């Protein structure tokens, strides 16, 4: 085999690899704003059995038939503090609408007292779930807070929003899902 052929073959292989990488970059879907991907999307939600910080039992399995929103929260996390007013508005809106979602705060690496004080000061009367040893966070693959997840009435995970919520994002995504679900 002559060196000319060898050069041609090596150049072709390098060009093929570069074109493939470019193709992957072009066809890969960009992240849709804050709505993030997760292997759990479309899958049954992990089994969550815990208690609220007021020691009321909670079993996600028993919430089937309702839209459930989990907001992973820590009272010292700045984006969690920033998005809190949006969550208060969201909870009010859902409480008054038909087929409204149930909002739950999942306490992430924080003390019950700190969470209780935060909600007393900033409002929000929804349930706050204990997450012993971060088991719920691991079950959902949450590494950083805040994260917000939506579970449909069939118990399937439908939306994952990473980071601070932007105004109207959760409402818009949830309305879209509800429309798809009823149609």
């Amino acid at each position, binding site marked *: 085999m002559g060196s000319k052929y*060898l050069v041609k073959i090596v150049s072709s292989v390098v060009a093929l690899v570069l074109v493939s990488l470019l193709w992957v970059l072009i066809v890969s879907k960009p992240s849709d704003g804050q709505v993030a991907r*997760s292997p759990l999307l479309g899958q049954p939600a992990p089994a969550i059995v815990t208690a609220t910080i007021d020691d009321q039992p909670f079993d996600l399995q028993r919430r089937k038939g309702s839209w459930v929103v989990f907001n992973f929260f820590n009272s010292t996390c700045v984006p969690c503090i920033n998005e809190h007013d949006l969550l208060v508005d969201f909870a009010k809106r859902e409480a008054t609408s038909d087929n409204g979602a149930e909002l739950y705060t999942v306490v992430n690496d924080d003390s019950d007292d700190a969470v209780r004080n935060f909600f007393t000061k900033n409002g929000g009367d929804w349930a706050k779930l204990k997450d012993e040893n*971060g088991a719920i966070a691991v079950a959902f*693959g949450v590494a*950083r807070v805040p994260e917000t997840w939506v579970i449909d009435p069939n118990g399937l995970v439908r939306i994952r929003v990473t980071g601070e919520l932007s105004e109207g994002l959760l409402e818009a995504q949830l309305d879209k899902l509800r429309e798809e679900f009823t149609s």
Partner: protein
Amino acid sequence: MKTRKSIWLAMFLLVSVLLAFGATRSGGPQTQQDRIDLVTSHLACPTCSGESVFVSRASAAEAIRTEVARQVGAGIRTDDEIISYIEQRFGSEVLLVPRSTGLDSLVWSLPAAVLIIALSLLVSAFARWGRRTPGAPSVADEALVKNALAESTRVGDES
């Protein structure tokens, strides 16, 4: 000379036996803590850079360690299944050792392929160089040699 050969042969046999033993011996029974350490050392801390769950003190890593310990304690899943469980939640970024299937397998196969190709090219280049023989002398070469011989004969006669 014969003794030296025997020593080399004995050393070769000893190394072969030790290698075969090392490659095939079983790890023996593991404690639960061994399994937890092994699994967590294969997982990357999702909130730190370059640290495994085994060494990291971050709260996310601690949560994963606790979950791994819980699953090892329950005894339902194998080590690979526990790693897959964490991967299914946090994505493949959480794996410190790439999988040997799918696109990740390129990490293992490409270096081997490059090594094989490079060695083949080297062998073929050496073989080509070994076969290369000097070509037949040209008419000009022969004339040059004839002139040089004639010149040396003339110089010899004069002296």
